[in-house]
């Protein structure tokens, strides 16, 4: 598929054009955090971000969502639809987009399809913004992806470092979005060269590496290793690593009620919490931070691989950057490797 280019000052026009048909979500800055919000004008977009603090997974799998409401013991009627308009997520990073391929395996599996996730996923176009400034904590290249990864994207947009963006359609829907107006023009030879150079530079910037080859087998052998005693020591047992993680998808179903009525809610939950596996009888199969941290690592690098053939990590580095006690997954993987 041949690439397109668009001048940076034309981008707003293009997005405004698309907003007629779509709700456009884009990175917006507020309170020192960059996060995805629906925008009313392209001027709201904050481009100077490395990546958002929270992952955009909550646009598909919200932290808390109502499954159904009830009043006086009666369930209320189902909602017909979750999305009023199809959405575009603009400038999602390739790692966060790639993550949706993993979540698809869980929520859109062969046996049970989660209607909420699936509807949001189907109604959303992903316009990726290639990562030209990866961070020191990024290790996507170790996770069989990279800063220009196209998995799950409809469009890949690349800042060429001059006055224009390179735009490549990945899917038919992405192609349609390009074809909606005439602001985009065919990329010239110079643009293509620049693209290749930008890509190479970005990939070279990623110095962090972990080795996932053979990791699954290694983990099989060290379930009862003393390694876990060591690595969990400083863990506070909070849920930052799981709640800010791209791929973590555990949840709880719970009922909330006030006088006027109640709701059954699906809410994120974390394997780092003691209550996650606490049974009504008082029995808890994962009794301390040690078991819980082992579960987190095992789930990503062993169990998920066994069940879905892929590692449940995209190398975004959020867990590393945001851990209050600087627990570093790269280091843990290294230690496992050394065992």
């Amino acid at each position, binding site marked *: 598929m041949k690439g397109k280019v668009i001048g940076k000052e034309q981008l707003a026009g293009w997005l405004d054009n698309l907003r007629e048909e779509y709700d456009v979500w884009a990175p917006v800055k507020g*309170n*020192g*955090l*960059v996060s995805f919000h629906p925008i009313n004008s392209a001027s709201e977009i904050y481009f*100077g*971000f*490395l990546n958002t*603090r*929270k992952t955009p997974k909550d646009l598909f799998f919200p*932290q*808390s969502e109502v499954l159904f409401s009830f009043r006086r013991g009666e369930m209320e009627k189902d909602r017909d639809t979750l999305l009023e308009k199809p959405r575009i997520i603009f400038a999602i990073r390739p790692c966060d987009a790639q993550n949706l391929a993993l979540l698809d395996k869980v929520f859109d599996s062969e046996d049970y399809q989660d209607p909420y996730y699936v509807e949001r996923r189907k109604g959303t176009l992903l316009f990726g913004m290639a990562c030209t*400034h*990866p*961070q*020191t*904590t990024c290790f996507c290249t170790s996770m069989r992806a990279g800063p220009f990864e196209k998995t799950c994207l409809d469009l890949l947009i690349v800042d060429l470092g001059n006055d224009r963006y390179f735009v490549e359609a990945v899917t038919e829907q992405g192609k349609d979005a390009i074809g909606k107006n005439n602001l985009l023009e065919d990329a010239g030879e110079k643009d293509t060269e620049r693209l290749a150079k930008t890509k190479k530079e970005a990939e070279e*910037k990623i110095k962090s590496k972990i080795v996932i080859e053979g990791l699954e087998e290694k983990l099989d052998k060290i379930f009862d290793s003393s390694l876990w005693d060591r690595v969990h*020591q*400083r863990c*506070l*047992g*909070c*849920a*930052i690593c799981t*709640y*800010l993680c791209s791929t973590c998808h555990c949840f*709880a179903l*719970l009922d*909330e009620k006030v006088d006027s009525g109640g709701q059954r*809610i699906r*809410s*994120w939950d*974390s394997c780092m*919490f*003691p*209550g996650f596996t606490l049974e009504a009888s008082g029995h808890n199969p994962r009794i301390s931070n040690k078991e819980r941290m082992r579960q987190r690592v095992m789930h990503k690098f062993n169990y998920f691989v066994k069940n879905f053939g892929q590692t449940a990590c995209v190398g975004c580095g959020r867990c*590393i*950057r*945001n851990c*209050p*006690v*600087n*627990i*570093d997954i*790269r*280091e843990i993987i290294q230690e496992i490797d050394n065992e």
Partner: protein
Amino acid sequence: MQENQKHLREAAEKLLSDKKVDVIIGYERGTLPLRTRPVFIREPDETKKLVWNSRCENNLSFYLKTAKGKVGIVAKGCDARSIVGLIKERQVKREDIFIIGVPCPGIIDRKKIEDTLEGRDLQEGVESDSQVILKGEGFEEKADKDKLLHSSCTTCTHRNPVLYDTLIGKEIPEPKMDEYSDVEEFSSKKDNERWTYFNDETSRCIRCYACRNACPSCYCPQCFVDQSLPTWFGRTPHPSDTLIFHMIRTLHTAGRCVDCGTCSRVCPMNVELQILNKKAEKDVKELYGYEVGTNLEELPPMATFKIDDPQEFIK
């Protein structure tokens, strides 16, 4: 500080080789630029890992609750006050811990560094006496440490540990200041403004409970938000429930919180509720003349009473 780090390592090594302690909880260099992290040292020759600088942000007294054996612990002013509280509340025994006190001129807030960087990635950082040098792709900048201090540190009046077994280096002067001027200023705002502020802050809360889990004073075996029967308050990030969670946490730590600032430092969503904790601290001080974590004898204020306690608010 360099000098103190050397002394700290020596003291730690001696404690371990003399078998006075089984483990030393201190700080080591982290894996990220300008970061340190808690470390547990059991062998004398590992003590060279120990560091002491303005980035030792964690309140290590958190780990005392689960530590086994005789524990040596590196304690800044605020950590030492937390330890006093824990001893008083019988969470740790005085004789089980050896406090290595370090006078602390203040800790750098990594969120302030982040603000300075404005979206650029920090690849390397160097700390000197009064400045930090921040380096990354295509930039190198100096920033004054004073401007980067965590807000709790700027109003800290207990930089020197109140309780210690050995002190590293010399005591530093305690600043004289009006610690609560920010609380006064905030109080003078309208009801609505204050309400909006707290709602805005807690609206970002994702209920990861890092604030609670990192807090040395939050050690209930089961937190009130995790109780199932009765379920006190909702567990989702519903605005009313998050607000209540933070409010009750403030109430639970009233008379116990030393304003170490750990809760705000660990928050991944930049929720800033220090003012609420400080208000409780101020009330306790003004109403009951109690300063948290400064002596081992006085009963915690919320566990006792005086017959003539102020009661103007009661009809």
